[in-house]
């Protein structure tokens, strides 16, 4: 028999939680136990007294599944709020990647030229390598990394997405 999967659209969820041991395991466990996707997940402490963390989750699914994900997250005891950033109108998304490229000659020059086009910064260099820092949407980071594959890419580290709604209001 065939096991069906459903395609869906991408959503960015901002989740504020009590900054306590095990909360990340609880959230990732919820996603794996209920079969939801995680495309990326970032987490860091965001309050002055270190009591709150913000988790940004990029997920995808049909609308009913996204609604379930939000409801399931919201009922976890340490979760304060869950916001679907796509719901509230415009939002800003950023991701940082550190991209190590090794090579000499033309490839090295080409890598540097493209980094300039993408406004990537050089954060480390040797005679045979660069590390670029690039900030932008995931799409932009993807495209930069794809180009670097042609120029001697050896290693990539990415942060995953952080996002925040446009305008003066807080969540």
């Amino acid at each position, binding site marked *: *028999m065939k096991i069906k999967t459903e395609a869906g659209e991408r959503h960015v969820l901002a989740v504020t939680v009590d900054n306590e041991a*095990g909360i990340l395991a609880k959230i990732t466990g919820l996603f794996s136990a209920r079969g939801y996707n995680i495309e990326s997940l970032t987490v860091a402490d965001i309050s002055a007294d270190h009591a709150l963390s913000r988790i940004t989750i990029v997920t995808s699914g049909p609308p*009913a599944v996204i609604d*379930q994900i939000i409801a399931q997250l*919201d*009922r976890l005891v340490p979760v*304060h709020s869950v916001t679907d950033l796509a719901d509230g109108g415009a939002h800003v998304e950023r991701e940082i990647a550190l991209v190590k490229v090794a090579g000499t000659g033309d490839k090295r020059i080409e890598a540097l030229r493209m980094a300039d086009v993408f406004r990537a910064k050089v954060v480390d260099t040797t005679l045979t390598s660069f590390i670029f820092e690039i900030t932008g949407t995931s799409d932009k980071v993807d495209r930069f990394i794809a180009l670097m594959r042609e120029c001697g890419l050896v290693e990539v580290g990415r942060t995953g997405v952080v996002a925040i709604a446009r305008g003066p209001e807080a969540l």
Partner: protein
Amino acid sequence: MVVQALVDLGVDTVFGYPGGAVLPIYDALYKHPTIKHILVRHEQAATHAAEGYARSTGKPGVVLVTSGPGATNAVTGITDALLDSIPMVVLTGQVPTTLIGTDAFQECDTVGITRHCTKHNYLVMDPDRLGPILHEAFYIATHGRPGPVVIDIPKNVQVATGTYNVPEFIQHNSYRPQVEPDADAIARAIEMIAAAERPIFYTGGGVINSGPDASAALRQLVSLTGAPITSTLMGLGAFPADDPKWLGMLGMHGTYEANMAMNRADLIIAVGARFDDRVTGRLDAFSPDSKKIHIDIDRSSINKIVPVDIAIVGDAGRALDALIAAWSDKGHKARDLGEWWRRVDGWRATRCLDFPEKTETDADIMPQRAVKALFDATRGMDPIITTEVGQHQMWAAQHFGFFAPNRWLTSGGLGTMGYGFPAAVGAQIANPDRLVICIAGEASLQMNIQEMGTVSQYRLPVKIFILNNEWMGMVRQWQELTYESRYSNSYSDSLPDFVKLADAYGWTGIRIDTLGQLEDGIAKMIETPGPVIVDCRVAKLANCFPMIPSGAAHTDMILQPNDITGTMDDEAKALV
């Protein structure tokens, strides 16, 4: 401090089993004047007993077990409580904080293991946090949708001195369950109810959890609207079984009239029920022409399985009260539902719960007959009935009538064999003067049969009524339905002599072999003051009907054994 907090929280009973990592708490419980500790024979039974205590009283059940195996043995009962929304607080011992993470003796990652089978859990690293956490845990277990909370307490935290105050007011810094229903949703719902031509109430365990007032409100609203009512397995007792509006349970082993009425309704009013797969059957054929109102305290239950037209998030009792108030405020009168009731009565006329039987005194007892006889014999005694899981559970749900909430204790969501007997122990502790009967199958009972010792120790007058057909009957029934009667490992081989076993534990044992012995045997069980085990031998190959096979619609019920085909395609086999 733990014991003082339990006293302050009004705990009178703890179900548990000692071990190295909880000895300090056990020492504090030694000869305690108000907290009664019930020593079980296995930690799983402690959790089910606590569920029985909670389900029969509405108060949270409390469990105390040691680290490592104590905690892992409790996991099944904790998960059972999560699935059936039973308020429970489980205290587990843990190795000292200095040894955590070293694979110490009887160490396990209790908070890791129980993270996804609890409503919430804690590992207490700071003695000053112990008091607030205990109070918070009881708050979380009992507020919103109830559920189990685990508190893992390292041994050095148990012996440390910390500050303890009784908090005047408990508020978790993020947990805010919504209990008050939205007035606008109530207003829209009442118009929809008043306008419906073919309405039906579909109620569940949420009505029971909300307390006896919710059951009273339900009865009032059903009476105001004149609509038929069905309920899930977990909701039995919220509405009296002898009321003409009662259609019986719905779902896989529900009545024909309940399932047909759900299918043909133009409005379903779901109250504290969650459209479980055992209820809906094939989803694309589930009640295709109805609008749906869903009242649930857990927002994640809404639109999870079945999309609904009006969602009312809140406590079932308060929502029902608000609906009743809105009904009279608007001056609604019950519509003439005569045409709808004529159709319902037509489905009732199939008499789907009838079963073939012989009437000679030496005939085999049909299991349905045994349940009916037990029901007739205990009418007016207001018994508490627990069950294990399987055919006997469904026969009990179909043929035993309930008239009030908190009388029917069964494992619905997780379907835990071994639940019923320890749940009966917990219910009997909480209700020492009531008649508590566990309707069991011979296979399920053996999963926690060691608790006979607990019953003997505390002289509990628990009655176990075994429908003994020498099979894991529900497994065999599915093998007949789906696997051409290849009975792979479903025969209950090497059964004990239950009457001799009763004797060994100091109980009374009664065997019933034939129909002629049934009434006398039940009467003797009820009259006997102490614990009794009844080995009621029933027809071995009887199956539980009516039944909606997995993957079928409400309208495709199997009413009789000869409707069975014996094979299924892979799609159907994959469904549980």
